[in-house]
C-alpha cells in the first residue's frame, strides 16, 4: 500500500513539474494555444510589442530583436511620444475543428487599428478600423473595436496588430482574444447593463425637467443637462455613441466629441454642485473662486482644441497637469463646501456627498488608468467610471428628489400657515360679528323694547285710540322680531333645543315641513357651543329655503357621552358644485364648527338631498 501511495505522489509531482514547465514556456512564448475549453486570453500575456515613430515596413521588422514584452502586466500602455505600436502574437489550434475567435479592444477611441496575418515572409492585411474610419466599415458592428479571427483545425498562424495613435496622448487598452460564443454572451450582458444605466438617466432627466417646469429653478435644468452630457460622455466612452449616432458620419471628429462631452458634463457638475450646496448664499467668496476656475478650465480646453492646437502640442503633459490641478482644486473646494453645508442641511448634503464620492472615485481611477495605466479600470468588461456614474446619478437624483420634497414640504407648511391665518381671521370676524349683534340685539330688546312698551301703556292709559295702539304694537313686534333675528337670546332661557324649536316653527310653512327632534341632549350646554350651533341651524335653514327646493327637513340634536351631534337633512335638489362648498355660507358654518374643535361633514347627492352632520366634543 505504501508503495502505491508513493507512486501516486510521484506521478502528481511529475505532472506538476511538467505543468509548470509548460506554463513557463507559454509565458515566454508568444503563442496562444486554442483547446476545446478555450474561452479567453489576454494578449498582454503573450503579445510582443514594438513602438515606433515612423511608419515601418512590416516585413523588415518581423525578425528583428526589437520586440519586447510589455512591462505592464494588466494592459497595453503606450506613452506620450510614440506614434505607431505593433503587437505580434501567434495562434495555435490544438483541435482538429476550425475555430472562430474575436479580438476585442477595450478602448473605443483608438485612431487606427489594422490587423495582419503572416503569409510566408510577408504580412497580409486582414482588416482596418479605428475612429478614423466610419462606423459602418467595421466588420463586426460593436461598440468596441472587434476583429474576427478564423483559424482552421491544427493550424498555427502569426498575427500582427498595428495601432496608430496621436503623439502627445498616451494610449491605454486591453486586447483580449475570445471564443466567439463567449464573446457574444458577454456582449449581450454588457448591453443589458448599459441599458439599465440609460433607463435611470432618462428617468432622472424627466424628473428634473418636471421639477424645473413646475418649480422654475435653474438647478433642475442644470442637473438635467448634466445627466444628458454625462450620458453622452459615458456612451461615447463606451463606444455606444459612435455605434448609434455616428454611423455614417465620417467628418465628425470622433475623438473631439468624447472630450467635449466629458468636459461639458464636468463643468455642469461644478455649477450644479454650487447650486445644490447653496454656495452663493453661504460662501460668496468661494462661489466666486469656483466660477473663475471653471471659466479658466473652459478657456484652457478651448485653446487646446480649437486655437493653439499645434503650439501646445509639446507642452501637452504640462498643460494637462495644470488642467488636472485646477480640477483637483475645484474638487477640494467642493469638499469644503460640503462640510460647511452639512451643518445647515444634513440629509441633502449626505446624499450629495455620497454621489460626489462615487464620482471622484470613478474619475480618479479612470484618470490614473488613462494617464499611467497604474490601476485596472475594468469590471466585467465595463469601465469603473460607468459604474461610478451610475451610482452617482442614482444618488444625485435622490438629492434632487429630496430637494423637491423640501420645497414641497416648505410650501405645505406655508399653505397650512396661510389656512390657519385665514381660519383665525374668519373666527375673529365671526366673533366680532357675534359680539356686535349681541350688543345691538340687547339694546333693541332691553332698551328700545322696554321704552316702547312703557310708552304704549302710558299712552293707552290716557287715550284709548285703537289705531294708535295698533301702530305702536306693530312697531313693538317689529323690534322684537328684529332683535330675535339678530341674537338668539332665548337660548339662555330655554336652551338650544327650545331656541331651535322656535327657529323651526318660524321657518316652517305649507311648502316646507321642518321636523326637529332632540335625543339625550344635555340640560346645560356651553353658551358658546349653543349659540354657534344655533347659527349653523339658522344658516343652513336659510340655505335650504333659498336654494334646495326641499319639501322636508330633519333637524336633530343628539347628545352622546362626550360629544354632541347636530344633523340637518333635506330632501332637496342637492349639489355637486365646488362653488357652493367654498361659498361664504358653508365656510362660515365650517369655521364655527372648527372654532368648537368639532367635525363638519357634508354630503350631497343631486336630486336626493343634502346631509350635514356636525359633531362637537363636550367636557
Amino acid at each position, binding site marked *: 500500500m505504501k508503495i502505491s501511495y508513493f507512486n501516486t505522489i510521484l506521478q502528481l509531482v511529475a505532472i506538476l513539474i511538467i505543468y509548470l514547465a509548460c506554463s513557463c514556456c507559454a509565458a515566454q512564448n508568444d503563442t496562444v494555444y486554442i483547446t476545446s475549453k478555450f474561452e479567453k486570453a489576454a494578449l498582454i500575456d503573450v503579445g510582443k510589442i514594438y513602438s515606433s515613430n515612423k511608419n515601418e515596413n512590416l516585413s523588415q521588422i518581423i525578425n528583428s530583436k526589437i520586440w519586447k514584452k510589455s512591462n505592464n502586466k494588466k494592459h497595453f500602455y503606450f506613452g506620450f511620444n510614440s506614434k505607431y505600436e505593433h503587437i505580434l502574437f501567434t495562434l495555435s489550434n490544438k483541435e482538429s475543428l476550425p475555430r472562430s475567435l474575436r479580438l476585442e479592444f477595450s478602448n473605443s477611441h483608438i485612431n487606427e487599428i489594422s490587423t495582419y496575418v503572416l503569409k510566408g515572409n510577408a504580412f497580409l492585411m486582414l482588416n482596418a478600423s479605428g475612429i478614423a474610419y466610419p462606423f459602418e466599415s467595421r466588420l463586426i458592428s460593436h461598440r468596441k473595436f472587434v476583429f474576427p479571427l478564423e483559424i482552421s483545425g491544427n493550424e498555427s498562424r502569426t498575427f500582427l496588430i498595428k495601432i496608430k495613435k496621436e503623439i502627445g496622448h498616451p494610449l491605454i487598452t486591453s486586447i483580449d482574444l475570445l471564443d466567439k460564443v463567449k464573446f457574444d454572451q458577454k456582449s449581450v450582458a454588457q448591453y443589458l447593463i448599459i441599458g439599465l444605466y440609460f433607463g435611470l438617466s432618462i428617468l432622472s432627466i424627466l424628473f428634473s425637467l418636471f421639477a424645473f417646469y413646475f418649480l422654475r429653478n435653474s438647478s433642475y435644468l442644470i442637473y438635467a443637462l448634466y445627466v444628458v452630457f454625462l450620458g453622452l460622455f459615458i456612451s461615447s466612452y463606451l463606444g455606444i455613441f459612435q455605434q448609434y449616432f455616428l454611423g455614417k458620419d465620417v467628418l465628425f471628429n470622433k475623438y473631439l466629441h468624447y472630450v467635449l462631452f466629458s468636459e461639458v458634463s464636468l463643468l455642469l457638475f461644478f455649477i450644479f454642485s454650487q447650486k445644490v450646496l447653496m454656495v452663493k448664499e453661504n460662501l460668496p467668496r468661494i462661489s466666486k473662486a469656483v466660477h473663475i476656475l471653471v471659466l479658466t478650465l473652459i478657456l484652457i480646453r478651448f485653446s487646446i482644441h480649437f486655437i493653439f492646437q499645434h503650439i501646445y502640442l509639446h507642452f501637452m503633459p504640462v498643460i494637462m497637469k495644470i488642467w488636472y490641478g485646477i480640477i483637483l482644486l475645484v474638487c477640494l473646494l467642493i469638499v469644503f463646501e460640503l462640510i460647511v453645508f452639512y451643518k445647515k442641511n444634513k440629509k441633502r448634503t449626505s446624499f450629495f456627498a455620497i454621489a460626489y464620492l462615487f464620482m471622484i472615485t470613478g474619475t480618479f481611477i479612470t484618470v490614473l488608468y488613462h494617464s499611467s495605466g497604474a490601476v485596472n479600470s475594468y469590471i466585467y468588461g465595463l469601465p469603473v467610471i460607468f459604474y461610478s456614474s451610475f451610482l452617482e446619478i442614482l444618488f444625485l437624483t435622490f438629492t434632487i428628489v429630496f430637494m423637491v420634497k423640501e420645497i414641497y414640504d416648505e410650501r405645505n407648511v406655508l399653505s397650512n400657515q396661510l389656512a390657519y391665518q385665514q381660519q383665525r381671521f374668519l373666527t375673529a370676524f365671526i366673533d366680532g360679528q357675534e359680539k356686535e349683534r349681541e350688543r345691538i340685539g340687547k339694546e333693541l330688546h332691553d332698551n328700545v323694547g322696554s321704552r316702547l312698551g312703557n310708552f304704549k301703556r302710558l299712552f293707552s*292709559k290716557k287715550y284709548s285710540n285703537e289705531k294708535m295702539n295698533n301702530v305702536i304694537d306693530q312697531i*313693538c313686534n317689529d323690534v322684537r322680531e328684529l332683535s330675535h333675528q339678530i341674537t338668539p337670546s332665548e337660548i339662555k332661557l*330655554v336652551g338650544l333645543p327650545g331656541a331651535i*324649536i322656535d327657529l323651526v316653527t318660524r321657518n316652517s310653512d305649507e311648502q316646507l315641513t321642518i321636523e326637529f327632534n332632540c*335625543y339625550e341632549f344635555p340640560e346645560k350646554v356651553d353658551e358658546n357651543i349653543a349659540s354657534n350651533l344655533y347659527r349653523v341651524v339658522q344658516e343652513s335653514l336659510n340655505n335650504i329655503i333659498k336654494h334646495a327646493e326641499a319639501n322636508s327637513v330633519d333637524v336633530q340634536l343628539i347628545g352622546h357621552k362626550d360629544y354632541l351631534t347636530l344633523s340637518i337633512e333635506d330632501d332637496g335638489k342637492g349639489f355637486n358644485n365646488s362653488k357652493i362648498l367654498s361659498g361664504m355660507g358653508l365656510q362660515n358654518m365650517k369655521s364655527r364648527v372648527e372654532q368648537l374643535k368639532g367635525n363638519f*361633514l357634508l*354630503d350631497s347627492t343631486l336630486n336626493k338631498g343634502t*346631509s350635514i352632520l356636525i359633531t362637537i366634543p363636550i367636557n
Partner: protein
Amino acid sequence: MPKTIKKIIICEDHQIVIDGLRSIFKSNKRYDVVDYVRNATDLIKSLKKYSPDILILDLNLPGKNGLEILKDLKSNQEGLKIIILTMYNTESIIREVIKGKANGFLLKNCSTDDLMEALNHIYKSESFYLGEGVKKISNHSNLEKEDNFYNKIKITNREKEIIFELMQGLKVPQIAEKLIISTFTVETHKKNIFRKLGVKSSIDLLKFANENQLF
C-alpha cells in the same frame, strides 16, 4: 271684587319699565306696589319681607333668569300669583312659562287694560292668562308625552339607508363605499342611530327594526 288690597312686587331690571308700572298702579286703589327689585337675590329678600300676593316677573334678568326664578318660587311659595312680563314672544318660552306654573304671560307692549285684565283673571280662574298678541300654543297639556312618543320613531332618510345596509350585514367601510360618503360619516350616523334607539349592537338594531317594522 277682591276686598283687600293686593300687594305687588315687580322684578324687572329696567328702571323705565318699573317707573311706568308704578305710575299705572299709583292711581289704582286695589293694588299696591310694595317693592321693586332688579334680580333674584333681591327678590328673595323682598318676598320674605313683604309676602306679596302678586309678582310681576321679567324673564331677561342679570344672573338667574326669570324661568329659573319661576321654577324656584313655584315649588316653595304657595299662593303667590306670578305674571310674566317680557319682550319674548316665542312658543318655546311660553311653553316653559306654562310648565313653570306661572299664572299669566304678558308682553312688554301690553296695554294697561290688558295688564288689569290679567290681574283680574288670575284671581277669577285657574287657567293660564295669555296676554294680547301672545302666540297661541296648541294642546299644551300633552306636550311632554307627545315629544317622547315622537322621539322613538323618527328616523331620517339617511339613517334609514344606513340601518338598511347594516341589516344587510355590511360593515361601516363597505357602507361608506356604497353610499359614497366617508367612513367617519357612516360611523357618526351609526352611533347616532344606536343612541337614539337605545340599542347597543347591530343585533339589537335588527330586532328593533323588525319589531317596529321599519322596512
